[in-house]
């Protein structure tokens, strides 16, 4: 008899693996990232700038390299940087930057996401907060203007900058609707590189839900809560925009749903397994919380967009949500037995 392997039970496993999950998420992000590169790469005169592509690829490269080096230094195997999770962080970070962002913001932000927000906590599985969002928060703190003020307008000359749809609601005063709900849906509006195309993010998101890699409860509860609260919470400045008030409730809902980073956040950031609750009930609470906070920040807070901070705040609550929604174990004595035990 040749040497036998003494494994512990169970001796068979399902096909699932971490790399499989991660690389599938990467694939589902490609459509939205690609169309973002297209919209922000096409200049008004027909020439194409590869700058958005460089931002995307640069962020991914920095993320993977950072993870490989740190894992190597920690003795955990540099090749594990190719499990796909660093690629996801790199992509997501690029997708929440504007396409005209300086290269040093991309490099340092992507580095920060992996080195500080992920590896310092212990690596995959140990981080409390979504690494790409921490990278964005860090970059927003350090380079507020570059990150949040000069939005390139898609399909126009580089130098032209416009306001994002949410900026319009909060700080601008146009007389007519600047963007149609359809353009918002397909993504042809100013904004971050990968957040604008609600359509392609939805496609990617539905794909992940069908593969059971994303719990549908989170995006559904997040988006529904955010949209309902956005419709309900009044904001004085917004109430003065006649073109907005003349929209039907569905068009308004569409405007709120498709603008900003809501779809990107709801389908790809809030659903990050490590930083969201493990239970189904917990997922619902998490989604509702994210939605509520997003709406509050958008309407009553200082920023036009609330997705980034609402998810980070709910990440903080994830451990306690897990504890609250812990399943009642089988055979937990729920009530007094029907028969009185004999003496």
């Amino acid at each position, binding site marked *: 008899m040749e040497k*036998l392997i003494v494994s*512990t*039970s169970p001796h*068979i496993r399902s096909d699932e693996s*971490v790399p499989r*999950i991660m690389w599938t998420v990467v694939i589902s992000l490609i459509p939205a990232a690609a169309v973002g590169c297209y919209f922000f790469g096409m200049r008004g005169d027909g020439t194409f700038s590869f700058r958005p592509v460089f931002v995307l690829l640069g962020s991914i490269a920095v993320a993977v390299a950072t993870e490989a080096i740190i894992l190597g230094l920690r003795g955990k195997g540099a090749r594990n940087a190719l499990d796909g999770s660093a690629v996801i962080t790199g992509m997501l970070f690029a997708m929440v930057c504007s396409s005209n962002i300086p290269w040093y913001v991309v490099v340092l932000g992507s580095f920060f996401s992996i080195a500080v927000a992920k590896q310092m906590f212990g690596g995959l599985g140990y981080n409390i907060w979504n690494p790409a969002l921490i990278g964005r928060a860090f970059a927003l703190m350090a380079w507020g203007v570059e990150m949040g003020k000069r939005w390139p307008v898609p399909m126009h000359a580089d130098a032209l900058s416009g306001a994002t749809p949410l900026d319009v609601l909060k700080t601008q005063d146009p007389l007519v609707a600047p963007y149609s709900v359809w353009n918002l849906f397909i993504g042809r509006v100013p904004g971050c590189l990968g957040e604008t195309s609600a359509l392609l993010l939805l496609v990617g998101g539905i794909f992940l839900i069908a593969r059971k890699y994303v719990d549908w409860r989170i995006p559904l509860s997040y988006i529904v809560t955010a949209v309902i609260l956005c419709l309900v919470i009044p904001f004085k400045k917004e109430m003065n925009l006649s073109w907005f008030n003349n929209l039907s409730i569905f068009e308004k809902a569409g405007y709120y749903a498709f603008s900003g980073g809501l779809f990107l956040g709801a389908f790809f950031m809030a659903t990050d397994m490590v930083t969201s609750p493990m239970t189904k009930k917990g997922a619902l609470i998490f989604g509702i919380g994210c939605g509520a906070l997003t709406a509050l920040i958008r309407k009553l807070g200082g920023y036009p967009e609330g997705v980034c901070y609402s998810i980070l705040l709910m990440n903080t609550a994830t451990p306690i949500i897990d504890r609250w929604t812990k399943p009642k174990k*089988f055979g937990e004595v729920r009530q007094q037995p029907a028969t009185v035990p004999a003496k």
Partner: protein
Amino acid sequence: MLRGFRGGVHPQEEKQRTNAKPIERAPVPKVVRIPMSQHTGAPCKVVVQKGDSVKKGQVVGEATGFISAPVHSSVSGKVIDVGQYPHIFGSPVACAVIENDNLEEWAKGTNVECPDVNALSIDEVKNRIRAAGIVGMGGAAFPSHVKVSPPPTKPIDSFVLNGCECEPYLTADHRLMLEKPDAVIEGMLILCRAVGAKDRFIGIEENKPDAIEAMRKAAAKYDASIRIVQLRVKYPQGAEKQLIKAILGREVPSGGLPFDVGALVHNVGTAYAVFEAVKFSRPSIERVLTVTGDGVENPRNLLVRIGTPISELLQFCGLKEGVGRLILGGPMMGLAQFTDEVVVTKGTSGIVALTDSEPQMHRACIRCGRCVAACPMELVPSTLSILGEANNIDEAKENALLDCIECGCCAYVCPSRRPIVQFVKYCKSELRIKELKAKEAQAKQKSA
């Protein structure tokens, strides 16, 4: 109505290799080795010596204590050795080694037909079960005479015959139900009578339609009140607590046993053995098992003598090159062996030879929650794995460690390939050691 239970997984069934193959008699070995520990509970005490001549069905190991069952020689012949030999759990165990004289002579008092089992008193029935050394043949090998003697404060109103065989690859119970349904039903009725169970059920997973039909016909002959319940195929439907939940809708309380909800469950193989023991006074010396896996040339269902070396069965079925793992039992809960020198015991339901090898590395828990969704005991396996990895035994105990039935659903679905069941087993054994030490310390203090 098909009731069920929360959680569970759906591994590939892999039963098509053997589910249409009738049970064959495996060749009786020249030498059998009877281990003294074939059951949950205290091991037996050897009562034969080198040189003794023994008959088939003769006691070679006496039960010690209440939760114990005697072991018998499965052949007639001569004891050629008594000593420590490799055992299925890894550590060697005392065995009586008997050379077969091929005369197949039964011991005195065994192999005697009882004209009417219903004329026997219930105590006599229980004695016969105990004397025959019957233990649960589903795998846990718990002494059956103990199971049919629940405390008087816990009456049994429902008996469930377990024909689920939810482990992949195994088809022994399926074939037994198909080929010997009458004997199985008669065994079930003996058990029902022993505990006074009024409601009688047989639970069979719906991937065995022919067995369901055979059992239905047989049950109708003997007792029209027996209800055959067709269950959805889901692992581990055949686990006792999950079966009781699915059929009776009752949850065995945490830390409790089925008699706490008035239920009693027995495997079909056990019922058959009970019939043999009570009707024919034949002790537990053989059983049906499935030899299968992609490492076996001719997978089959075999009737095997207890004490047959695994190596002989593998030779009989043809072992392929490149077998990486030898598992006794099913692939979800069975024990991987480091040698083929171990023997078949009363609890061996299958021999699965697999050619693949498992990757060794596991990752950190990515908190995906698949294990939480899969756990049939509704625990949080992720937490147990993290606590086990951190050697935090006390907190593991507070997190329902002792409720884990070690079914393997959690580790099966884990994308990080975490050995969750191993962590649980480790924590449980560390806890046992701790509690033993605490008891010893207490005893020392008292005597000091």
